[in-house]
């Protein structure tokens, strides 16, 4: 195979002691990044609690009905007073979070803050590890490259930094949106899958699915990762079966603990989009305005549009299941029922893992601007609509449309970049030629 010959020199350019020295320096940088990111969050939480409370905590772009910290506290308060938190219209988060915060709830606020900061730092650490695994694990690093391409320009510490210092993610952690825990489960599932620890991977995917439903789609790329090591068909069947068992086990355990109500208040709630509080997604205004008789039809259409792409997207990128999984994270961020900026932050955090695709992007100026417009305009239009009353709902809706359009463009552009690069790898001599899609 010509591809393998081309990739071999990339790793052997440096001598062994140099590599070790570089690795140690890289590790030091990573630790500094993690500490700096955590410290920044802690400083904001401790020094500007008033600012966070007044200007960030209530932001619908950062916390949604299924991730809001205020609602989590209400759930903890109710369950500590012997009222089922799921028997009401406020709490819609996984019972896992109730268990996680059962003890911190009685401790000083700083403990809870640290749990969130640690979870976020852990996400960054795992992102760095995923990048590291792509660089070092043979099945990834020995993959062919495009001739003349500089290998791995984006080291793990930079990937961690891009995630931790993303303002969207800082905001998400500072308002203690519980999407952070879903992120952690997602990246752990990917990391374990890359290392071939399929059981652990499936377990984390089940936890992620339990925390925010949509990551259930990730079981497909994980099954394909398992398929790298054995017969594809049996690997897929086994992985999906394991996932089903894990999800069912969690479901049975929580049904026994909280009754059937927990299911109605969490999964059913998400699927039916029962709370129409605005967010950066497509669902809320549509379901405020849709005629009652078509409501259930469109629930199905909208949810299926997101969920139906799990298999085709994973299959399309079957040679790079990790990339397939990242694409699915992007699909989730664009099309879930209660998206927030935090979802986009995870997608943006995962993309530098495939930094070699950046130069294949065709619309980066367009989607970069669309996203910045969407992100910048949303709070302004929210203020005009809700606080001042000089705008109306259409203003905020317009900002979410721009934001969604930006996300979809970015998603599509990255997918095309991947396919275009694969063409260059398989036919390196024609990479300066014109290509078309057919």
């Amino acid at each position, binding site marked *: 195979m010509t591809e393998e010959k081309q990739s071999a020199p990339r790793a052997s350019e440096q001598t062994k002691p140099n590599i070790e020295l570089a690795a140690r320096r890289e590790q030091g940088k990573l630790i500094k990044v993690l500490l700096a990111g955590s410290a920044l969050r802690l400083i904001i939480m401790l020094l500007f609690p008033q600012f966070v409370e007044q200007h960030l905590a209530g932001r619908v772009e950062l916390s949604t009905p299924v991730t809001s910290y205020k609602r989590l506290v209400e759930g903890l*308060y109710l369950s500590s*007073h012997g009222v089922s938190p799921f028997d009401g219209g406020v709490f819609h988060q996984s019972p896992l979070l109730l268990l996680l915060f059962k003890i911190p709830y009685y401790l000083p606020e700083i403990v809870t803050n640290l749990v969130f900061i640690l979870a976020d730092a852990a996400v960054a650490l795992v992102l760095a590890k995923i990048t590291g695994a792509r660089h070092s694990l043979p099945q990834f690093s020995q993959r062919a490259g495009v001739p003349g391409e500089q290998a791995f320009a984006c080291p793990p510490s930079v990937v961690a930094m891009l995630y931790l210092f993303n303002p969207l993610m800082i905001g998400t952690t500072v308002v203690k949106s519980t999407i952070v825990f879903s992120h952690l489960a997602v990246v752990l599932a990917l990391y374990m899958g890359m290392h071939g620890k399929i059981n652990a991977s499936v377990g984390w995917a089940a936890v992620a699915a339990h925390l925010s439903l949509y990551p259930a789609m990730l079981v497909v790329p994980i099954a394909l990762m398992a398929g790298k090591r054995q017969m594809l068909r049996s690997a897929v069947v086994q992985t999906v079966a394991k996932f089903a068992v894990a999800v069912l086990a969690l479901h049975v355990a929580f049904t026994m603990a909280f009754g059937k109500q927990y299911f109605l208040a969490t999964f059913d709630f998400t699927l039916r989009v029962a709370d129409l509080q605005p967010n950066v997604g497509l669902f809320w205004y549509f379901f405020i305005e849709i005629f009652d008789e078509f409501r259930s039809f469109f629930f199905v259409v909208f949810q299926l549009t997101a969920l139906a792409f799990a298999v*085709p997207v994973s299959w*399309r990128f079957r040679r790079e299941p990790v990339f397939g999984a990242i694409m699915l994270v992007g699909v989730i961020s664009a099309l879930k029922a209660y998206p927030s900026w935090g979802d986009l932050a995870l997608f943006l955090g995962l993309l530098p893992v495939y930094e070699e695709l950046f130069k294949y992007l065709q619309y980066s100026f367009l989607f970069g601007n669309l996203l910045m417009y969407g992100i910048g305009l949303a709070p302004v239009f929210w203020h005009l609509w809700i606080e001042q009353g000089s705008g109306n709902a259409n203003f905020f809706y317009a900002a979410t*449309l721009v934001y969604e*359009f930006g996300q979809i463009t970015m998603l*599509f552009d990255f997918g095309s970049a991947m396919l275009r690069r694969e063409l260059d790898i398989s036919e390196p001599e024609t990479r300066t030629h*014109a290509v078309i*899609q057919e």
Partner: protein
Amino acid sequence: MALLGSGRAGSTESFTEDLVVQVLPDNKVLLHFEFNLQRPQPTSNDTQHHYHMFPRQLGEIAHRHNVESLHLQFTQGNWRAEQWGAPTVNAQGVGAEVFARITNDSDADWRGLTNALSGVFCASLNFIDTTNTNRPRRSFAGARHAHLPRENVCTENLTPWIKQLPCQGVAGLGALLNPYRLYNMHFHAMAVDLAPRSIGGQPVLAYKQTLAVVVDPKTFGLDGQWTLAQLVDREMRPACAVAKRSTVRVLQSDRVELVPAPDRVDAVNGHTVSVYDAAARGGELTDVRFTMSSGRAGRQRATPPAIVAHRFVTGHGGSSGGVECAIVNHSDQPMRVSYMDSLPWYLRLYMHTLTAQAESLLNGETHSLTPAYMLYTPAVDRGRPALVELELDLPPQSRVTLRYDFDKGFLKYSEHPPDANRGFNIGPAIVTYTPKEADLACTVGAMLGDAVQPEECVARVYTELFLASLPTPDFSMPYNVITFTCTILALFFGRMFNLLTRDFVVLRGGQKDKKKD
């Protein structure tokens, strides 16, 4: 035997009519009409219900829906406790309030009852459903309770109410009910009460119709001196012939001179009451002339009731807010009160934000207060309202402030009322307590022969209503939103489909220059 029994039952129905007049400290006048009807409880094998004076429609509704006791009240205007003192009726905020105890506590009976009452009183009581029905444990002792804050009271409600009187509007005190005067008022409360009572060991069903209005004589050009007939602009008619008792009673104050002299003067719970009894005047009602002793200068300060409560809505912006309720204990003794607040589901209550703070009225010292009892039923979206019940021990001479936050829900376009930007009326919070000394409502009850024992006397303080303006969508947008959103969705689907099904291929040969990469 049964026939004989029921025959006798008809004849033992009894009816009394009374009017209590009080000149309030600011020279407005409270007219409190009360009509009491009692009939023996039908025995279980008594299938034929004979009604003599008792309104048949109410009797049948109560029987059909297993109603044990019922209270229905329509109110307009606020009772100003600081100016007027304690009220004689539940001084609830504007709207209609129903509470009823139903024997088997069935949902169907409650719905049936409210729908039937809706028909009888020409009111929108049929809007009472699970989203605004509460089942408080302490404040209404097991009854179901609902409040419709948007319900207005008008003559269409009064007409069926008058029709239930044995002499209707033709004779007796019923003839004084002149809508032109009753609705030109500062406060108006019209109520019916159905309750089982025991009179001399005999179980009876008591039906009480109450109408309390506060009118200002000056509005009608009456100043300093006026008669009852002038005040209501109707002539005095003979007392209702079937009434066992027909009286006009004036709660005496030293600022008012009454002509003619009363038939007798009673003393009830420290109040001096001048009684004009039709029985003593050959069945004629007396047109009492009131003369204010010192006119305008005669204004007095009222003694406020022991407990006064006010509720405010706090916060700004359209997406969240808070409730603040101040309960003031004016008495020198600690008071145990029940606080009940019910908010509709679209105000998402955060109970963990509840704080209670007591502030002394004497020296301004504050400390936090722990409720002695707390019941919280969270709201269910489009299902039931949130219900907060607290028992608080109010220190003497103190103001206790309760605070809690809510987020405003976002409703479907079809769930907004036609005038969406006006907002939603939110019903009052209710503070229930047992007064240390019988209050005016109890005194009036005792005076008019209510069988309620003084220790059973319960006073309810209703706070103001508030208006919650929820964020509104653009109601003209459905088609646009469907189009725009579906466009984005189609864009997503199309691009993904494109990505999944089409491969990149290299253009070779003559076509090479067609497209630059």
